[in-house]
């Protein structure tokens, strides 16, 4: 009868030291339908041959939306944090094309309510690049912002869309916010992760404070082949088994 309830506190230690900008990016490289792709620790996907950077499920304005519903309005910090990371990845890759794979905004009101400094920031990131907004299920595409708005984007041999379609191959999608739990010798570590096999990549959510769906979830059962692997995000991205 000693089942004392204890909330389990987890403290994330800050990364120490400033990472010098001239060290090479840590990536996990793999190929999909003949395209050479690199998974970044941030959760972005880099297609070097096409100078293309893909990020999924930014959910900008999420905390703002929650705040809006609970009656307080204040600057959303998750948005800033997400944009800071995006800016770092753009600087590191100097991508010429950026694909936002849907659910870029938590909802359309979130876009409207975004502080001007944030929209200006996005505009700054967009300058000099081709920018594609793929429609998500939360946002039918941020119409107000410059860039092309597409339901999906084919860049042979790959296709970018928000939600994976069963039976397709060479497909990059997002939507599910996949997470994997890795059992190490000391503890289980759960992190957002890329899932990939010979047909597709399902991207982790790039936005700060987005929840996740365990790789063991039924949703992935038919989508991912039995030999599918995962790439965990973090300081250094790493290939690990995809728990089923």
């Amino acid at each position: 009868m000693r089942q004392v309830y204890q909330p389990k506190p987890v403290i994330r230690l800050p990364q120490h030291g400033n990472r010098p900008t001239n060290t090479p990016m840590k990536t996990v490289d793999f190929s999909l339908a003949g395209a050479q792709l690199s998974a970044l620790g941030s959760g972005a996907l880099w297609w070097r041959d096409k100078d293309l950077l893909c990020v999924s499920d930014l959910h900008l304005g999420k905390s703002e939306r929650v705040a809006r519903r609970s009656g307080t309005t204040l600057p959303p910090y998750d948005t800033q944090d997400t944009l800071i990371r995006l800016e770092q990845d753009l600087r590191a890759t100097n991508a010429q094309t950026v694909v936002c794979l849907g659910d870029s905004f938590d909802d359309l009101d979130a876009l409207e309510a975004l502080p001007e400094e944030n929209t200006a920031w996005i505009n700054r990131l967009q300058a000099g690049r081709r920018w594609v907004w793929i429609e998500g299920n939360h946002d039918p595409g941020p119409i107000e912002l410059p860039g092309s708005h597409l339901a999906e984007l084919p860049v042979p041999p790959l296709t970018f869309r928000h939600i994976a379609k069963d039976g397709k191959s060479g497909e990059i999608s997002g939507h599910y916010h996949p997470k994997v739990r890795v059992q190490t010798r000391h503890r289980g570590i759960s992190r957002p992760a890329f899932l990939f096999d010979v047909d597709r990549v399902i991207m982790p959510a790039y936005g700060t404070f987005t929840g996740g769906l365990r790789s063991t979830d039924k949703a992935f059962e038919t989508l991912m082949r039995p030999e599918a692997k995962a790439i965990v995000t973090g300081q250094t991205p790493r290939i690990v088994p995809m728990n089923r």
Partner: protein
Amino acid sequence: MTNAPCLPATFNDWFASRGWSVHPHQQEMLAKADVPALMLIAPTGGGKTLAGFLPTLVDLAQTPHEGMHTLYVSPLKALATDIKRNLRTPVDEMGLDIRIEDRTGDTSNFHKKRQRADPPHILLTTPESLALLTSYEDAARTFKGLKRIVVDEIHALAESKRGDQLMLALARLQSLCPDLKRVGLSATVDDPQAIAQLLARHPDPCEILQADPGPKPDIKMLTTSEPPPWAGGGAAYSIPAVIEQIKAHKTTLIFHNTRAQAEIFFHNLWLANEDSLPIGIHHGSLDREQRQKVEAAMVAGQLRAIVCTGSLDLGIDWGDVDLVIQIGAPKNVKRLVQRIGRANHRYNAPSKALLVPANRFEVVECLAALEAVQENDLDGEPRGAGPLDVLCQHILLRAASGPFMADDLFEEMRSVGAYADMTRTEFDDCLNFCATGGYALRAYDQWQRLMQRPDGQWQLRDPRAAAKLRMNAGTIQDSDLLKVRMKRSRGGKPLGEIEEAFAASLSAGDTFLIGGKIVRYEGLREMTVEVSRDKGRKPKVATFSGTKFATSTQLSQRILRLFQQDTWPALPDHTADWLALQRDMSQLPGPDRLLIESFPHNGRHHLCVYGFAGRNAQQTLGLLLTKQMEEAGLAPMGFVATDYATLIWGLDAVTDPTPLFDRATLTEGLDGWLAQNALMKRTFRGVATIAGLIERNQPGQRKSGRQATFSSDILYDTLLKYDPDHLLMRVTRQEAMRGLVDFARIDAMLDRIQDRIDLVTLDRVTPLAAPLFLEVGKVTVTGSADERLLAEEEAALMDAAGLST
């Protein structure tokens, strides 16, 4: 003693009819009725309350009085109700025409309204209700003619913001009624002068009256055939021995340090109660009706034992308590002495008490506490200047009662002892915060609350805001509680409250303990947890925060000195042998050195830091040290803290601990790394709620704890980034030195040890460190350890695939 000189005949006759005589200190209180500020220190059972009221009763008996004559303030609602009952008896029996009423959060709105218009002679209330009373526009009329104020259990109030709020309200009353006399009633304390200074109008002196402290208490450690367990706080092992004690005494109070422990203990006691002894439970999270039932049964002498917490710490007269049992180390000698005083309410008879250590380490702590009680060596931690969040609330409530001049209010506030040294700049900061929300928030309409009129007076910008301010008055932080009641179809009986975070961890069908009953969680309906009765075997135990005391500095020092003895004849063998083994294998920690042990266990490296700085500071130390270990590349993975040590584990061993304890680095960590921490946010939340930045209550709805947390966390992050010097951020940092963060005790530890750090490296766990592995409340830290562990998994996967990375 016979006839007292200044006591009227009616009173003498009444005392005589009861076979009582007037205590010397009661006599003296009467003689000093005209002293502007007077504090009486008397042990429990010394007729303290009657001493406080005697001058009032005598005056009212001799001179008819219009309106309110005496205001009585106590920290407990129950105490106000109890005193009303106790005063009624002499007043009725002497046939005095005196109206006595109480006013607390439980009083009906109808009565409250009437009391303002037609106040009784004696009004019994709490600091919160008094603050509200002064916030009405008709305050001057309500308090017209007020002559005396009696603050009961002032030692308890003086330790908290409730006391600060009370003294601010008192300053306001003093302005309304310049001849007001102040009386404080206190239990035995370490520094009476400090409390007297809080009571008196600054800089007036305060006379102190010491009653005879009575005989020394009869206090021992409970010996059981079974030794206490190595860890934990439940003390379930002691149940059979406790039952024997209950049987051998008339009425026993069984004190616990936390409500959760009280619930578990009561449950176990009940299961073992084969003779069906009438036993009750009483704690602050139980429903009022439940508590009142227990109180009534207690007064009627129907209960043999009550399992309780701090809710029974203070002076309600519980009739024939002849034994106090303290379960778990008392953590603080002063509180122990006050609890012991609950036994034997007859003056001049020794109180009888038993200490029950909950685990092996507490055996040592209990012995240290016993020795401290015998030597009357009480602990006190100075509180420092009055907190500014309370001042902000006071300013807003002052504005609710009508316009004021800043200069006048400043002078009034400086007459409060705790705020005597406040600068005009600090006051203006508070006023500015109340008016605009502060620099970073000035653009938001909801915090624009005061405006200055052309004549220079400050007033509410929107008079309708007054009602909202009153709803959010008070300084008690009851963290996110949800009411628990039986499902409506079963009568909807209210049971008590649980924390929202605990409620969130429940799903339908889960069972938990409340008020000694096992109930099944049915669901959440609006802000109420609905439950049904259940005979479940394994209930969860609700957590209640806010009652986790840290062992006092003085008690910790006593333990460290005790360790230095060659042998420990006063300790039971099992504990003395344990300490001897520790000395043999490693060292025992000493008063002016810091012992650190480093050893491997289960494939991890462990670092055990015996700081003896109290639970909260040891927890903070865990946060700061793991951060530094991360920077040193040692890959820490987690830690756990107790009152005496912090145990940290990680992938690599610490070989040179000295740089980790560099004061400048630790302090920097407090400002930088710790600023992001949940404890700081929680501290801020308390401050922001008291200062009125966050409203927990709005007309017609109550904000749920999570909503309030959400907005207060965003506010905190905003201010940290854009306005780190905002008034409330400064107050938050000040509070972090005490309370949950308790950095002041890390500071004190560094002063104590200087550079005397002993690192003992061993190949296995030491006897003193072993119990830490069993502690609950482990904190996981994630960082480079995770990166390294993941790299290992990746390598293993690649290896298995015949690849190498």
